[in-house]
């Protein structure tokens, strides 16, 4: 392997090491100025003549996470062995640092994007025709040029991140439910005087055994059911980001996706490997952007997952516009079933934020009696505003 020939002004080990750290930093590893010195110190403890040893030593020191660990080999070779496209002598101090780390989950469903764009144009009521009545829709900022613009551009990473952040807040608001009552606890904040006194009788009046009282945590679980049918296509990406945000905070949360069938996507959304997660999701989303059968999907949920997923501390969140080709009766029955097992059912409806929208669709009419709340979710702001609503539920 050809060893990099450094320009003459980069003299000595320290300068080159500074260049290497800058090179790593430019490639997204988060390293501070102190690491250069550490790296030199580390090399003092190994046989520096052997590049393999030096590589291993520097990797242990400079790779901060699994991602950096995997990429380190290539980055090392690129700098010291000239294998990459690195500009020679990058040992200058003004290296543009790449600040933002790659967005965690932006490319989800990219593979299905071709299909969704088509159906987006066919989607009824969501094209440019309604733009004036739909102030603050998720996609509404440039609605005049909507039909020319790529959905991905409109649904930029920032709004996906915002949706995730809103969801995290929401999930925290739901989860944080400390009981008002106090129960005996092993390490509570306060002493349980009555119990201590009672126990002291056995010790000749000495308050010898200490008992504590604590407010027990009673966290709420979240189960999210996300509609990804044709009419929801424009919202699907943001809603999936939202659902991912819910899962991020709460390790017990559960997520499902439905159009005409129902799929559990909890493990796919939890996948740390974003590429694999995207692959798994797109496999699952086969039929993504097709028709909707909310009733059948929820019935399937009741039959299979509900027994495990629901308890009386569960909030069920349905993200759907309520346009459904199935029978309203089935939907009502399914919701009644969920209602019996879960604490709350909340329906987040992107159409609800529209002017003049009334839930007249048959499915919505059938569902209304079973809902604890029917809330708008058409903009990121609306999603963020849900936090207040949820803490009241």
């Amino acid at each position, binding site marked *: 392997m050809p060893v990099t020939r450094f320009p003459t002004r980069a003299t000595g080990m320290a300068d080159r090491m500074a260049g290497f750290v800058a090179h790593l930093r430019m490639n997204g590893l988060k390293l501070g100025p102190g690491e250069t010195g550490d790296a030199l110190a580390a090399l003092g403890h*190994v046989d520096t003549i052997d590049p393999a040893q030096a590589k291993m*030593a520097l990797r242990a*020191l400079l790779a901060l996470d699994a991602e950096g660990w995997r990429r380190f080999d290539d980055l090392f070779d690129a700098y010291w062995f000239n294998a990459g496209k690195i500009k020679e002598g990058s040992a200058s101090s003004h290296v543009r640092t790449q600040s933002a780390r790659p967005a965690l989950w932006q490319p989800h469903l990219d593979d299905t994007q071709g299909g969704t764009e088509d159906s987006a144009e066919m989607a009824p009521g969501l094209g440019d025709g309604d733009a004036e009545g739909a102030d603050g829709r998720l996609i509404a900022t440039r609605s005049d040029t909507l039909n020319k613009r790529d959905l991905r551009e409109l649904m930029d990473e920032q709004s996906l991140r915002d949706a995730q952040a809103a969801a995290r807040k929401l999930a925290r608001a739901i989860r944080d439910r400390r009981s008002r009552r106090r129960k005996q606890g092993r390490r509570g904040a306060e002493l349980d005087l009555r119990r201590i006194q009672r126990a002291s009788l056995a010790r000749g009046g000495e308050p010898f055994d200490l008992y504590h009282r604590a407010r027990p945590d009673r966290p709420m679980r979240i189960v999210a059911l996300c509609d990804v049918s044709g009419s929801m296509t424009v919202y699907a990406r943001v809603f999936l980001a939202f659902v991912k945000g819910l899962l991020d905070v709460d390790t017990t949360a559960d997520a499902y996706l439905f159009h005409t069938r129902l799929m559990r996507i909890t493990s796919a959304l939890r996948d740390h490997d974003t590429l694999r997660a995207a692959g798994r999701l797109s496999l699952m989303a086969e039929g993504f952007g097709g028709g909707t059968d909310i009733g059948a999907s929820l019935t399937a949920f009741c039959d299979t997952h509900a027994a495990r997923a629901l308890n009386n501390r569960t909030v069920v969140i349905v993200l759907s516009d309520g346009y459904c080709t199935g029978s309203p009766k089935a939907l009502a029955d399914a919701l009644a079933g969920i209602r019996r097992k879960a604490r709350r059912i909340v329906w987040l409806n992107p159409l609800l934020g529209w002017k003049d929208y009334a839930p007249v669709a048959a499915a919505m009419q059938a569902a209304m009696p079973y809902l604890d709340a029917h809330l708008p979710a058409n903009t990121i702001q609306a999603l963020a505003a849900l936090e207040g609503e949820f803490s009241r539920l």
Partner: protein
Amino acid sequence: MKHEELQTALAGTGYVADESLAMALHLALALGRPLLLEGPAGVGKTEIANALAEVLDTRLIRLQCYEGLDAAHAIYEWNYQRQLLAIRAEAADEEALFSDKYLLKRPLLEAISQDVAPVLLIDEIDRADEEFEAYLLEILSDFQITIPEIGTVKAKARPIVVLTANGTRDLSDALRRRCLYTYVDYPDRETELAILNKRAPGLEARLATQIVGVVQALRREELEKKPGIAEMLDWAAALAGLGINDLTDDRTAVQATLVCLLKTAADRDAAPVEVMDRLIGKVA
């Protein structure tokens, strides 16, 4: 000690470490920095600390992290009962009440008050809360703990700190930067065979190859919980215990022993007889 020597010494205790892990441990010892180990469950992250303590002939102090772990359980606590007794007996003045005698040392304080540097294992740090992680940062950089009633306790000998995590939650960059890092992955075929030979020396070479082959193949299947090294060793022990010398011999018995490898119902269904036949057929 150079890293090859460390590797050999670890092998002497029955731990087969690959070269980059040995190097990371060597640097951790040489630079006095904590070592953060990440990787899937069951690849022997915790075991490293045990082996290291054995090699260095020192104590292993272990702190198992969990959600809600607090200072009283990680650092120190006063022994209130003893203090109360002492007050009743009027044998103690206030000074004496807050002395070493009434201090219950928890793992972190224990680790920094040893005369000989121990190995401090902080297991599954990602399960602890973020506040605890922040507190840990202070201890890991200064190796001192402040007890208001007594004063600051400084480490007599810097403990060798090993942290493990498996991705329950993202660790802060500050913690990562203070540590050396190693990602411990599932071992490759040769390493795993070496591990199996070390841990189960009586096993027939042919069976050992088959076991490792099947486990490696199983890890490539779509499983919820991939079998780790511990599972592989369990399985080998089970097969040896049943007197099976060849995986192709007694298929029903082999299928029954899969309980050692596959720990969820979904995984059990994902590896029916046909799939196992295919995997075993490949390695036999």
